[in-house]
């Protein structure tokens, strides 16, 4: 039988260490909405989302109440809109109407984000996919809750450099379209390599074409819990360190598993996966950087950071995998800058650079995330950064992503405030040397060889 000590431990995790379930994300297929008439398509999309997801928020709140565990976000992901809209959308503006419909549906059912304004163009772009990409700046400026993600490469296909170049331009344009809000649009736009079909986390969530009609995916969190556990084993060996992370990750993930199963049962929608990511928030004590400090680094970014992060990421997976019946999504430690107080402090202290962050993304998910850069950064430079990050994903057979925010009108040393879970960020310097001639080349980088690993 459960004893007082165990109950106290669980409640301490929730009350003091910020243990929460970060998101219940309901994936909805829109394949059955496809229509060549734009108006009918919009109506079908709105009807399907508001029907399937009508009880999502209510059910989430009931589960929170029953178990006393906060479920921070209830969200929706949909089939990549480039596919859904291709038959009806003849120009970028047509796609914008779909974004507005998604926004309306999200507001109707009460979710704070809806993901899937996406295109999967890892090898080539159809006309419709290109139109969707070109519509992103306007779509993100005109909507509040829509998130967009574009997959521009994979280990199997190589990198679509035409899409990489285009996305550099679109990131800059999105920043300009939303410059009144410190280029907030870019916080809702992510570029992927090897994007997973079942990711519950925004801004990169979409409901992949390999998925069922509707599915529940859950993202757990808990950096604060890991940090608290590690504070009790300071100075101990790596064995003790790793065992502590594994045990903690197991406990955190079990809560996610319970919430996922309950949400699935109550909504009558199958359970998909648990995403084992350690997702920080700007709240004090809910930071991945602080875990790295607890492991023994003065600041995130110090020599040893990549090794410490690799260790952390791997142990979280080892502990979490056994706690859940299905694991998927991104499953790795997130290292966003603006959403993690410890990362922000490390940047301010001069310990952390974009180049070090890039090295860190080789050993964890998900990539260069929520990094504010000067507003006058050239599109070709952003494309170059995207290409570097995508190459890491392609070669290492992992998911990588880029979510950069060129803040129009601001430069290095200034700070940008996004608010809420998106946090705030000091603007980081970008390497000033040009890669224009490189990213101007047409075509794609071929898929890498999968053998001869030495």
């Amino acid at each position, binding site marked *: *039988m*459960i*004893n*007082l000590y*165990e*109950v*106290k*431990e*669980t*409640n301490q995790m929730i009350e003091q260490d910020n243990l929460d379930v970060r998101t219940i994300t309901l994936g909805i297929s829109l394949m059955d909405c496809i229509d060549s008439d734009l108006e009918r398509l919009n109506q079908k999309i709105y009807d399907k989302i508001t029907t399937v997801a009508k009880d999502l928020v209510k059910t989430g709140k*009931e589960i929170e*109440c*029953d*178990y*006393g*565990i906060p479920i921070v976000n209830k969200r929706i992901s949909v089939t990549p809109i480039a596919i859904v809209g291709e038959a009806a959308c003849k120009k970028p503006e047509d796609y914008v109407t779909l974004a507005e419909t998604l926004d309306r549906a999200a507001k109707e059912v009460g979710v704070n984000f809806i993901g899937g304004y996406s295109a999967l163009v890892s090898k080539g772009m159809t006309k419709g996919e290109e139109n969707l990409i070109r519509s992103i700046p306007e779509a993100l400026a005109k909507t509040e809750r829509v998130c967009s993600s574009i997959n521009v490469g994979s280990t199997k296909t190589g990198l679509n450099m035409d899409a990489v170049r285009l996305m550099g331009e679109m990131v800059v344009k999105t920043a300009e379209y939303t410059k009144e809000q410190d280029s907030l649009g870019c916080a809702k736009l992510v570029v992927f390599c090897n994007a997973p079909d079942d990711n519950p986390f925004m801004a990169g969530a979409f409901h992949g074409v390999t998925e069922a009609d509707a599915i529940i995916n859950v993202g757990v969190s808990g950096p604060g819990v890991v940090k608290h556990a590690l504070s009790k084993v300071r100075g101990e060996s790596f064995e003790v360190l790793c065992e502590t992370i594994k045990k903690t990750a197991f*406990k955190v993930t*079990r*809560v996610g*598993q*319970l919430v996922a199963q309950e949400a699935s049962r109550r909504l009558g929608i199958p359970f998909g996966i648990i995403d084992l990511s350690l997702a920080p928030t700007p709240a004090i004590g809910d930071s991945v950087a602080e875990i790295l400090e607890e492991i023994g680094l003065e600041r995130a970014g110090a020599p040893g950071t990549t090794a410490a992060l690799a260790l952390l990421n791997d142990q979280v997976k080892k502990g979490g995998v056994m706690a859940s019946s299905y694991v998927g999504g991104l499953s790795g430690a997130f290292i966003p800058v603006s959403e993690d107080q410890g990362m922000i402090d490390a940047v301010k202290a001069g310990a952390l650079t974009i180049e070090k962050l890039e090295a860190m993304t080789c050993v964890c998910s998900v990539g260069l995330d929520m990094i504010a850069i000067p507003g006058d950064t050239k599109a070709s430079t952003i494309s170059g950064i995207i290409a570097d990050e995508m190459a890491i994903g392609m070669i290492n057979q992992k998911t990588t992503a880029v979510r950069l925010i060129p803040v129009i009108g601001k430069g290095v040393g200034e700070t940008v405030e996004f608010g809420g879970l998106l946090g705030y960020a000091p603007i980081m310097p970008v390497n000033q040397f040009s890669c224009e001639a490189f990213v101007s080349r047409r075509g794609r980088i071929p898929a890498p060889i999968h053998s001869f690993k030495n």
Partner: protein
Amino acid sequence: MKRSIITVVGKDTVGIIAKVCTYLAENNVNILDISQTIVQGYFNMMMIVDTEKAESFEKLVRELDGLGGTIGVVIKCQQEEIFDKMHRI
């Protein structure tokens, strides 16, 4: 049976158990087990209860929270599965 865990934490004072138990009795909640300690003047109690016959779990959580406020302690009521899942394989 629907087993839930009630925890009461706060500064010790006269009548905490009496008030919590009275509320539970009035709301059809059967107490299955109680364990309680005082650590450095702080009252720590855990009850395992059956909430199946309670009118609504949400109301129970809300009213126990309110009752805690009037006594000066924190009262939480959570369904047992969260603890079982976390601490048992």
